[in-house]
C-alpha cells in the first residue's frame, strides 16, 4: 500500500497524462473506425461486384491481422515505400482500421436482424434503395449492435497498450509502467495503479454502453 502512495506521489501527474492519452487514442480511433465501418457496411450493400469483393477482403484482412503486426508494418515498413506517418497517427490509423473491420462485421449481423418485409414495404412505398438503407435498415441495425460495439470499445481501449511498442513522445499507461519498472523498484505498485485505471475505464465504458442499450433497444 505504501509503495502505491509513493508511485502516486512520484508519478501522479505522469499517470494522469498517460490515462488521458489512453482515452484520447481510444476515442479518436473509435469515432473514426465506427464511421469508416458504417461506410464499408453500406458500400458492401451496393450491387457492384468488384467493390463487394474488395471490401470483403478488407474486412477479413483487418479482422484477422494482429494489431501489433499492422502497427509495426505502418511504422517501420511504410517508410521504405516513402510513406511517412508520425507515431501517434500510426497508432490511431492501426486501431481505426481494425475497429472499422469489426464494426462492419457487427453491423452486417445487425442488418440481418431487420425483417425483409420492412425492406419490401419501404421499397413499394417508393423509397429508393439507398433511402431504405438510410432511413429504415441502418437505424434499426445501429440500435441492435450497442452491446457488441461496447465490447469492441473496451477491447480497443485495452489495445491502445500497443502504442508502447513505438517511440511515442507521450506515454500511455502500459508504456509508463514499463518505464517505471525499468527505472525503479516500485514497478509492482505502478502496475497496480495502471491496472486500476484500465479497470475503471472499462467499467465506465460498460456502464455507458448499458445506459445507451437501455435507451435505444428494440423490444420485439
Amino acid at each position, binding site marked *: 500500500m505504501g509503495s502505491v502512495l509513493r508511485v502516486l506521489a512520484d508519478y501522479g501527474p505522469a499517470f494522469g497524462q498517460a490515462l488521458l492519452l489512453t482515452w484520447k487514442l481510444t476515442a479518436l480511433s473509435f469515432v473514426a473506425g465506427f464511421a469508416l465501418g458504417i461506410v464499408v457496411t453500406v458500400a458492401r450493400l451496393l450491387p*457492384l461486384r468488384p467493390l463487394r469483393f474488395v471490401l470483403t477482403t478488407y474486412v477479413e484482412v483487418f479482422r*484477422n491481422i494482429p494489431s501489433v503486426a499492422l502497427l509495426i508494418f505502418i511504422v*517501420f*515498413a511504410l517508410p521504405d515505400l*516513402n510513406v511517412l506517418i508520425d507515431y501517434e497517427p500510426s497508432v490511431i490509423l492501426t486501431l481505426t482500421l481494425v475497429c472499422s473491420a469489426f464494426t462492419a462485421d457487427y453491423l452486417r449481423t445487425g442488418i440481418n436482424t431487420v425483417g425483409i418485409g420492412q425492406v419490401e414495404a419501404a421499397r413499394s412505398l417508393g423509397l429508393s434503395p439507398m433511402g431504405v*438503407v438510410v432511413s429504415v435498415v441502418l437505424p434499426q441495425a445501429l440500435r441492435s449492435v450497442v452491446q457488441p460495439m461496447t465490447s469492441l470499445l473496451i477491447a480497443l481501449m*485495452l489495445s491502445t*497498450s500497443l502504442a508502447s511498442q513505438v517511440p511515442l513522445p507521450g506515454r500511455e499507461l*502500459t508504456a509508463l509502467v514499463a518505464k517505471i519498472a525499468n527505472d525503479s523498484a516500485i514497478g509492482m505498485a505502478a502496475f497496480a495503479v495502471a491496472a486500476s485505471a*484500465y479497470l475503471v475505464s472499462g467499467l465506465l465504458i460498460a456502464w455507458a454502453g448499458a445506459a445507451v442499450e437501455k435507451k435505444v433497444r428494440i423490444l420485439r
Partner: protein
Amino acid sequence: MSRALEDVLFGDLSHKAQALTRAASVTVAAALLVLAAAVVFRFHAAGQFEGRLWEFFAWQTTWVFLAKGLLGTLASAAMAAVIALVLGLVLLLGRLSPLRLLRWPAIAVIEFLRGVPTLLLIYVCFLLLPSLGLKLSAYWMLTLPVGLSTAAVVAEVYRAGVLAVPRGQTDAARALGLSEARVFVHVVFPQALRFIVPALVAQLVIVVKDTTFGYVVTYGELMQNAKVLIANYRSLVPVYLAVAVLYCLVNYAISRASQRLGRRVQ
C-alpha cells in the same frame, strides 16, 4: 424462402438503372485497378522490387526459419489455449458457486484479467517477476499472460453456455437423485459445451493474435523470427508483408472452422 437483403433492395431496378449499375461496376473495377497500379508503381519507385530484397524467399532456409516461427506461435497459442480452457473451468465453477467465499474471488479474478491489457500482463512477467526472484523462460513469459487473460474470457463464454441450458434439464437431473457435481458433469456442462464450441474456437484467433507480442520477450515466434530475417537481409517490406499474409491465413482458417462448427451445432 427469404431473399437476401441486397436482392430485395436492388431486385427490381429499371433497365436504365441496371445499365447504370453495370457502368458503375466497370468504373469501380477500373478505379481499383488504377489504385493497384499506383501501389505497384510506388513499390517500383521506392526500389522495393530489387532482387536482393526478395531473392532469399527462394531459399529453403528462409521458409524453414519462418515455419519454425509459425511453429513457435502455434506452440505458445496451443498451451495458452489449454491453460485458458482449464483455468476458465475453475473460474466458472467459482463463479457459479453458492458460497460467497468462492464466488466473489472468482468474479474479482475474472474482471481483473479481462479488464487489463494482455501486453501489460506480459510486461509484469517480463519486467516485474524477475525482480521478485521469479524468472520464467521466454516461452512462459508469453504463454502464461496470454493464457491467463484468455481464461477469464473463456470463463464468461462457459457461463453463457451454462445459462443457455434449459432449466428443466437441471431440475430433471436433480429429481432423478443425481448429486450437484454429477448434474454439472453429466448433464449441464456437456450441453453447454455444444452451444459454445464455435465461440471457443473463435477465441483461438485472439490467442494467436496475442502471441504476436512474443518478440517483446524475444520468444521465437513468427514476429520475432521475421525481425531476425529483417536484420539479416535488410528487407523490411517483403518480410513484413509475408508475415502479415501468414497471420491472416492462419486466423482466417480458424475463423472459417469456427463458422462451420457453428452451423453444424445449430
